[in-house]
C-alpha cells in the first residue's frame, strides 16, 4: 500500500454510497478490516442509507397527480397572463382607458342609458347573489369543485355560451364550486372561490345582451366591491368583500384568462 493516498472521510462516504472505483473500494475494505470499530460504523451507515431509501420509496412509486402533468401545467400557464407581458400591457392600457372614460361619465362608451341600466342591474343582481351565497355555510354551491368539468359544462349549456372557471390559485383563491341562478328571466352562472383566510369571491356570468364588449366598471356596496364588464357577449361580475385595490388585479387576471380561453389563436403556445 506504500505510495497510495491515505484513506479519508471522502473515501468512507463514497464507500457507503457504493461509488468508489473497484481498486479504491478494495483499498477501503482492507483498511476497514484493520479497523473493526470503524468498520462497524460504516456497516451501520450503509444500513441506515438503505433504510431511508426503503422508507421513502413509496412516494416515488405513487401515480403522479394529473395537476403535475407538464401538459396541464403548460395549459394553465397559457391561460395565465404571467408569461405574456404583451397581453398584460394591452389589458392594462384597456383598463386605463376604461377608468378614464368611467371618470368622464362613460361618454362614448355607453351609447344608451337603457343599456347602462341593464348593466347596473346585472351588477346589482350579482352582488345580491354574492351576499346571499357567500354567507351560506352548509350549501354555498350546488355543484362542488370536485366536479368542475361537469359544473362548467352544465352552466355553459344553461347560460348558452361557453364558460370557463378561471384558475385563481396564484391569487390564493381556490374554486369551491358553482350554482345556477335566475336573472331577469335569464340563466346566470355563479362560480365561488375561497382563500385560506375564508374570504369568498364570486364570479357571476350571464349573457350580455346585444353588447359585445365594455370597459371595467367598479361598484361598491358597503364592504363589498365588484368589477363588471362584458366580453364576447357575456356579462361578468366579480365580487368580494375586499377593497378596490385588492379586487382589481383579480378582475384583470380573470379577464385575461377568459380572453385567452375564448381566443383559440392565443391559447396556442
Amino acid at each position, binding site marked *: 500500500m506504500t505510495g497510495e493516498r491515505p484513506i479519508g472521510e471522502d473515501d468512507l*462516504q463514497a464507500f*457507503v454510497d457504493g461509488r468508489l472505483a473497484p481498486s479504491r473500494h478494495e483499498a477501503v475494505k482492507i483498511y476497514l478490516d484493520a479497523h473493526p470499530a470503524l468498520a462497524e460504523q460504516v456497516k*451501520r451507515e450503509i444500513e*441506515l442509507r438503505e433504510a431511508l431509501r426503503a422508507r421513502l420509496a413509496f412516494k416515488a412509486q405513487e401515480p403522479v397527480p394529473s395537476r403535475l402533468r*407538464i401538459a396541464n401545467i403548460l395549459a394553465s400557464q397559457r391561460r395565465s397572463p404571467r408569461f405574456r407581458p404583451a397581453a398584460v400591457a394591452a389589458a392594462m392600457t384597456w383598463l386605463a382607458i376604461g377608468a378614464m372614460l368611467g371618470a368622464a361619465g362613460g361618454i362614448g362608451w355607453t351609447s344608451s342609458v337603457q343599456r347602462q341600466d341593464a348593466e347596473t342591474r346585472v351588477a346589482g343582481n350579482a352582488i345580491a347573489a354574492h351576499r346571499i351565497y357567500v354567507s351560506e355555510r352548509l350549501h354555498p354551491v350546488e355543484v362542488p369543485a370536485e366536479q368542475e368539468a361537469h359544473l362548467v359544462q352544465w352552466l355553459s349549456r344553461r347560460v348558452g355560451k361557453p364558460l370557463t372557471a378561471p384558475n385563481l390559485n396564484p391569487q390564493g383563491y381556490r374554486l369551491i364550486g358553482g350554482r345556477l341562478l335566475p336573472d331577469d328571466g335569464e340563466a346566470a352562472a355563479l362560480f365561488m372561490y375561497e382563500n385560506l383566510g375564508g374570504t369568498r369571491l364570486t364570479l357571476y356570468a350571464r349573457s350580455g345582451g346585444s353588447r359585445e364588449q365594455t370597459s371595467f366598471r367598479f361598484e361598491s356596496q358597503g364592504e363589498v366591491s365588484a368589477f363588471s364588464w362584458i366580453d364576447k357577449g357575456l356579462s361578468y361580475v366579480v365580487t368580494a368583500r375586499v377593497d378596490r385595490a385588492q379586487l382589481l388585479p383579480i378582475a384583470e387576471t380573470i379577464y385575461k384568462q377568459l380572453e385567452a380561453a375564448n381566443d383559440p389563436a392565443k391559447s396556442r403556445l
Partner: protein
Amino acid sequence: MDEIASLLEPQIPALRRYAWALLRDHEAADDLVQDTLERAISRWSQRRREGDLRAWLFTIQRNLFLNGVRQRKTRGTQVGEEALNDIQAPGASPESQAGLHDILVGLDVLSEEQRSLLLLVGVEDLSYEQAAQALGIPLGTVMSRLSRARARLRDFMEHGPSTVLRRVK
C-alpha cells in the same frame, strides 16, 4: 413543449419524494413540486445547456422550500438567516410517531442542510458534484457535511435523543 414534457416528467417522482421528505404532507409536497415545475418551465431558456437538469430542478425546489420557510419565519418573530440551518422537519406526523426507530425521526434531528444533502445523495442518487451544485457548496464541504450527517443520524438511531442533545453541532 414536447421536449419540455419529455425531459421534466421523468423527474417528477423524485421531486415528489424529496418534497415529501422535507414537508411530510402530501398536499403541501405536491404544491411545492407544482411550483418547482412552473418555475422550471418559465425559466426553461435560462437553464444552462450543459447544466445538469436534475441538479437544476432540485436547486429550484429546495430554494422554493427555503423561501417558504423564510416567509413563515419572518411573518412571526424576526430571526437571522442562520436559523434556516436549524429547521426541524415536522416530527409529529403519524408516520414518524410509529416509533423511535423510524428513520424519519432520525432525519428530523439533522439540520436542513444535512437533511437535504443526505436525501439528495443517499436517496435521489445525485452525484457529489451535482449535490454541490444543487446546494451551492464546494465539493469538499459536501463530503464533510455528509460524514457529519451520517454520524449524527447513526448516533441518534443507536442511542436516542439524549446523545444528540449533548452533541454540539
